[in-house]
Every structure is written in structure tokens, then in C-alpha cells.
């Protein structure tokens, strides 16, 4: 059964988002011979995974999986990627989309060797977004130690200042180009895969959990950065108020997830993330006590279940069935007391700890910023609904549903196939 469509077919695929899902879709499609464009809004590829200390299933550092992907991209002439790039407009139909992509200036060209002289010369300091604002970078910076492409960025915030000139003068390779302008390019592609990923849910919206009120209440993504060797503390987990090594840490599960007042759905990864975080802390501080307050521990699948069981055997990790609904500064004003009802014993628990980690969930990027493609359909929460019938556009990874890396990659591989099917009209 074939339908004749007269519009010319474009043989290329656009992948929006260069995180683990986008990279997977791009590589899977490119390696069977299709031309792929990756559009990434950050100055680097790798997305959320690159911010992690370790990731599932093998608890390896993100370099482990990302580096090989970057290698494959470099070696594959079918893939073109744009960083600091955003999709501005999409028109057309399955098989032929005209996409306008805006390329924001990096102010640093291909000559960059990542020597770092520009950063040394720059005086201005800006909050480091990669480390979730926990430290500062210079106005000229490498986003993170393993950034790909390994090229410095000059923040638009210092453009036009003396600092920018100092950066330019410091560069021995003529790589700083302060005249660089934003430009738009038009691409014609046959299908688009939206791998726009997720944002950590804004913990300051959860009034009763005290984030932003007390410095020693942090989020799970902040803990990842604290534990990462390239993070603000070089991998030491220290509590923010006084850089003390925490002797006790409480994890607040479902912080904003499974909650109609915030994210009504289960974010899927937070239980495993907290169990993983327990291993980070236990490895560094053998005496530390860990309290995990949960509604239900969700460890989907055989491997995760095994991981959960292993953590349960640790006598310094305590599981309390009951959601934390109140936090207060303890008498020693750096400590935090969390309050929950232990639903198993029916007693109210007040646990005072050095540090509290909110296991915040994931919100799809498209929840706040709708994507410039009218034909996309979303769930109430902003996840993109895949319409295989219509074809042409697909969502991969966390743009489609909350997922871990394994499921995201499986889903992303599937979406590569779906994109290809659109191209060959099947």
C-alpha cells in the first residue's frame, strides 16, 4: 500500500538536543548512512549526563559513555552538530521540513586550543550554571573539563567590556573573535527528533521543604556536582554552610514528584539516584548515617532491585516510609531537622541531620518553553506525545517521558528508526 506524495523527500534528520538521547538517535541514524544535524543550545554536547558523577547501570563516570559517542561523532561525516544553537521555526510536513536554526555566537573560533589564557586574563566572574550556581566561572570559560567541543566560550555578558578585550589580547592563537554575530541558517530535513530533555524541578517552589531558606538543604543534582571530580568541591561532599564533612544526611524522596501541587507524575529516576547517592556518601565517609524518607521505593527491573537490596543491607542506611513534610533549622543552626510520620510504626519522626538532599524530579524542557513546532502534541505536563500515525516528528528520551539513561537510549534508538521510516516513507 503506497501513497504517492509529490513533495520531494529530504534525506536528512534533525535531532534537537545533544544529550544522551539526542546523541544516540543521531548516531544510530548516521551510522546506517543518513545525514543528521544535531542542534544543541548549550556550548557543549552531553546534556544532563555530563553533569553526573556516576550513572546507571554500571556506576561509571559520564566520560565512559559520552567519550565514545563523541569519538563516533567526530569520525562520522554524516553528522553535523551545532552548539549554542536553537530551533527558531519549523514549517513543512513529514518528509520535508524547513527549519530555521539560530546560531548564537561563541566568540571563540576553531583556532582555540583550550589553553585557558583567556580565562586567566578575564576578571569578571559569573555563576557557574554547569555546577548549578554553586561556584563561579570566569567570563571566558570552558563549560566543564571534558566539554565537547573542547573550546572556550566567552559569555555575552562580558561582550563590550574591557574584560572581553583582555581575553582577546591574551589569546595567542587568534581564536577570540569579538565581532562574531548571531546568525540563522535554514535546513531542509525529512524528519525531526526532539530530544529536548529535562530540567530539574525548581525546588524552591516546594514551600514546606525549605530549599533556598536553609543552605544545607540541597537538591540531588547539586549532590551529583558535589560528588563529581570536576565539580565545585573537586568531588568532596561538603555541606554548603561551613564546608564540613556531613556525618548524617537525609534524603527526601518525591520532593515535588507524585504531587498534584507540583509534578503529578513519578519522575522515575529519583529513587535510584538517592540510592546511588548513598553510595557516594558511604564511600567517602564510612561513619556517616543516611536516612532515606520515601513513599514507595521504586527500583524498576531486576538490576535496580538488586542494587536497592544491596543498599538495604548497609547498616548505616536507614529507610523510613513516610514523606518529609516539614523541615526546620535545628538548634545547632547548621543542622536541619526533618519531620515525617513513619507509616510503619505510626510515630512521628524528627531526624536532625547535617545535610538534607531533596530528590527533586524531572520536568520536561517543553513544559516551560513550548517548542516552535505547531504539530507537536503534549501531555498536560509538557511531555511530547509520539504520534507514529502522523510520523515526521518524534520525541526521544526525557522529552517523551521521565526515564533513566538505559531507557532513554532504547527509546532514542527506536526514534532513530522511526525517523528513518519517515524518510523512506514506510
Amino acid at each position, binding site marked *: 500500500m503506497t501513497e504517492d506524495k509529490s513533495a520531494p523527500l529530504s534525506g536528512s534528520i534533525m535531532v534537537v538536543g545533544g544529550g544522551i538521547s539526542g546523541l544516540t538517535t543521531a548516531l544510530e541514524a548516521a551510522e546506517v548512512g543518513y545525514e543528521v544535524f544535531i542542534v544543541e543550545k548549550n556550548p557543549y554536547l552531553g546534556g544532563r549526563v555530563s553533569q553526573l558523577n556516576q550513572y546507571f547501570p554500571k556506576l561509571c563516570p559520564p566520560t565512559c559513555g559520552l567519550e565514545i559517542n563523541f569519538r563516533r561523532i567526530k569520525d562520522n561525516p554524516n553528522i553535523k552538530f551545532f552548539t549554542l544553537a536553537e530551533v527558531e521555526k519549523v514549517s513543512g510536513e513529514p518528509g520535508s521540513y524547513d527549519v530555521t536554526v539560530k546560531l548564537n555566537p561563541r566568540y571563540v573560533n576553531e583556532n582555540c586550543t583550550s589553553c585557558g589564557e583567556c580565562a586567566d586574563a578575564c576578571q569578571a566572574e559569573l555563576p557557574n550554571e554547569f555546577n548549578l550556581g554553586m561556584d563561579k566561572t570566569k567570563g571566558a570559560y570552558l563549560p566543564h573539563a571534558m566539554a565537547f567541543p573542547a573550546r572556550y566560550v566567552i559569555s555575552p555578558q562580558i561582550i563590550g567590556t574591557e574584560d572581553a578585550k583582555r581575553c582577546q589580547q591574551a589569546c595567542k592563537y587568534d581564536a577570540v573573535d569579538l565581532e562574531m554575530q548571531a546568525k540563522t541558517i535554514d535546513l531542509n530535513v525529512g524528519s525531526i527528533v526532539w530530544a529536548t530533555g529535562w530540567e530539574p524541578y525548581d525546588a524552591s517552589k516546594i514551600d514546606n521543604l525549605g530549599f533556598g531558606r536553609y543552605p544545607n538543604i540541597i537538591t540531588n543534582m547539586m549532590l551529583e556536582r558535589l560528588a563529581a571530580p570536576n565539580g565545585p568541591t573537586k568531588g568532596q561532599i561538603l555541606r554548603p554552610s561551613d564546608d564540613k564533612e556531613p556525618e548524617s544526611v537525609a534524603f527526601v524522596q518525591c520532593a515535588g514528584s507524585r504531587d498534584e501541587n507540583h509534578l503529578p507524575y513519578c519522575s522515575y529516576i529519583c529513587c535510584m539516584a538517592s540510592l546511588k547517592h548513598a553510595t557516594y556518601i558511604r564511600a567517602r565517609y564510612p561513619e556517616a548515617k543516611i536516612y532515606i524518607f520515601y513513599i514507595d521505593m521504586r527500583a524498576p527491573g531486576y538490576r535496580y532491585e538488586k542494587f536497592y537490596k544491596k543498599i538495604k543491607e548497609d547498616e548505616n542506611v536507614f529507610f523510613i516510609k513516610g*514523606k518529609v*513534610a516539614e523541615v526546620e533549622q535545628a538548634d545547632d543552626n547548621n543542622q536541619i531537622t526533618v519531620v515525617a*510520620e513513619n*507509616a510503619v510504626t*505510626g510515630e512521628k519522626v524528627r531526624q536532625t541531620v547535617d545535610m538534607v538532599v531533596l530528590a527533586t524530579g524531572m520536568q520536561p524542557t517543553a513544559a516551560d518553553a513550548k517548542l516552535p513546532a505547531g504539530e507537536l502534541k503534549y501531555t498536560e505536563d509538557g511531555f511530547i506525545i509520539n504520534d507514529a500515525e502522523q510520523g515526521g516528528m518524534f520525541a526521544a528520551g526525557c522529552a517523551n517521558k521521565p526515564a533513566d539513561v538505559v531507557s532513554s537510549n532504547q527509546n532514542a534508538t527506536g526514534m532513530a528508526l522511526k525517523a528513518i521510516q519517515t524518510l523512506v516513507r514506510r
Partner: protein
Amino acid sequence: MADKYLVEPDVGFIKEIGEYGGDSLKKCFQCATCSVACPISPDNKPFPRKEMIAASWGLKDKLVGNGDVWLCHNCGDCSTLCPRGAKPGDVLSAIRMYAISHYAGFPALGKIVNDPKKLPVLFAIPAVLFLVLGLIFKIFGIHWLNFSPERVIEHGDTVGHIAHHAFFHTWLVDLIFVPTSIFVVAIFALGLKRMIADMHANALLEGKTDKENIDPKGFVQSLIKILPTIMKHSKFSECGENTERATPHMMVLFGFIGLAFVTGFFFIVLYGIGIHGPYDALVWLPVKVIAIVSGIALIIGSFLMFKNRKAKAADQMSTYRDWFLIGLVFALGATGMLSYLTRLADAAFLTYLIYYIHLMCVFVLFISLPFSKLAHLVYRTTAMAYNEYAGRK
């Protein structure tokens, strides 16, 4: 906690709780946020998480005699933070309504009070009772009901003035109200006897008390100890949501206390000293002031309650039982006040008619006391006293 517990789900109970405004209970997934969100829940076996699971399993026995449902003042803090919209506040309120019916007995009478369709029947009872009883006495030559009441002449005034007792004689009124009161007190006495026993059994089972038996003296001491809390409405002000409820509730409570005092006072004046109202002489002025202030407090208090409930419609379930009580209190205050004003205005027909309606309202208040939401006056007080006695933390 008992090692083995035979779960006997009562599906009918779950349904009934739903009908009383607790139909959100099945949404609960036991995260226990509510128990922490509640500012007045104790540390030892806090509520309402455990009540929520018992309700969704239909464990009637764990709820009806559970004093904790009465400790809740329905401020709504739990419902606000509830991640599922399970509205524990509404569910506990529904359980209380169930418990009221359970301990009151007389299901037929309870149905008349709590079924909106039976509202005309409820008001018809006193309407008919007063007339029929009055007419029967007339047959025997006792004129306690006069359709052309004489004016009372005293202090040498020539035209005289309206006196409501010339229409319905106080003997007729009290012949109806005294037995009704005794009936109401008896229902409460029987209900409380069962309730206290159940509450204690439940507390022992759930480990909420270390007292083995209830010592009446200690219980009364606890009751006295919690009275200031009730009078000051301290529990209300601990709530985060709905703090504005305290004032109207206080107005209504003190309004009733004031009117109960005035009624008792003039009851003694009438039957003790033999002086009939209307008590216009200046010596009675302080008591009259109490009556008027209390009446106004009832009217304003119930009106504010109505307004607050209306405004909260999205967050808090309001059922017929809630509106019935607020409406009755308002009607009581309004008819009382109007019959007084129309008497002063010398509008004979109007004042007798309003007085008649006022008597109907008073009768409905009395008879519905053990069956309506107003029974919380007795049960919540008892539960708070018991909680104090149990020594819960």
C-alpha cells in the same frame, strides 16, 4: 500493635463516608504528609494518615470509636499539602458525621435531621406539636394556646403590651421543651457511654495511652483542664489555613452559652420567683443585654461561617449537614431577634408569627442536637478531654 488482625472491610461504610463528603479518600497513597502537615496532630500515633487507610479499607471499627477523628478541627492544612487531592480534612469530617449517627441511635430520627428532603417534616413536627397539644388542652378547658392573645397590663399602663406567653403559654412551651431536653440528654448520655468505652479500647489497641482504666475523677480533671483551650479556641489558631474561622465560631459558641445562661436564668425567675416576662424593668437590664448581644453574635457568627464556607468551596467539601447547621443557627438568631423587635414595635400579628417560627427553630435545634453536626459540641469536648487524660504526646 497486634501481630494478627483480621481485616473486615465494610464496603457500605466506605460508600457512606463518600456520601458524607469524603469521596476523595480513595485517592490517598499513604505518603503521610498529612500527619506532619497537621499542626495539632500528636507525635504518638499522629492522625490523619492512619484514619485515611482505615477508611479506604472500610475498617469502621477503627474509626467510629477513634477519638482522633474528633481532635481534628478541620482547618484544611492537610488537604492543602496533600499531593493527591485526597482531602483528609473532608474524610475526617465525614467520619465524624458517621460517628454522630452511630452513637445517637434512633436512625429514623437521624434521617429526618440529615436528609434535605425531610427538612419540611423536621419543621412540621414542632409546628404541629404546638398546635395540636394546645388544642387538646383547650378541649379540657386549659387555655395555653390563644389565637387572640390578651395584652398584659402591668405597672399601671392602660393599653398593656404584647406578651408572647399570652399566645403560647409558658406551661405549654415547657411541657414540650423539658421532656425534649431530657430525651436529648439521655441520648447523649447513652452515646457518650459507648463512645468513651470505644475510644479507650481503640487507644489501648493502638498504643495511644498507658492508662489501663478510665478513672472518672481523673477524666473530669482532664475535662476541666481542656476547657480553657476550647473557650480560647487555641487549637483553631494553630492552623495555617482557615485561621479566620476562629472568630465566627467563637461568636456562635459564646452566643449559645450566653443564651443558655439567659434561658436558665429566666426559667428560675419564672418558676422560682413566679415573675412572668416580658422583663422590661431596669433590674433585668444586664441579663437582657447578654441576651441581645448573644443573639446578635449568633446572627453575625453564622453569617460569617456561611461566607467563609462559600469562599472555601474549591478546597473544602460542604455538605447538607454543614449548611443545615449554619442555616439553623442563623434562623434561630434572626427569628429570636425579630420577635423581640416586632414585640417592641407592637406589631402583634407579626411578632406572634415570628415567635411561633422561633419556637419551631428552637425545637429543631434541640431535637437535632444529638444527630446533627452540632453534636460535635459534646463529642469533640469528650475526645479532647480523653486525649488529655490518656497522656498522649
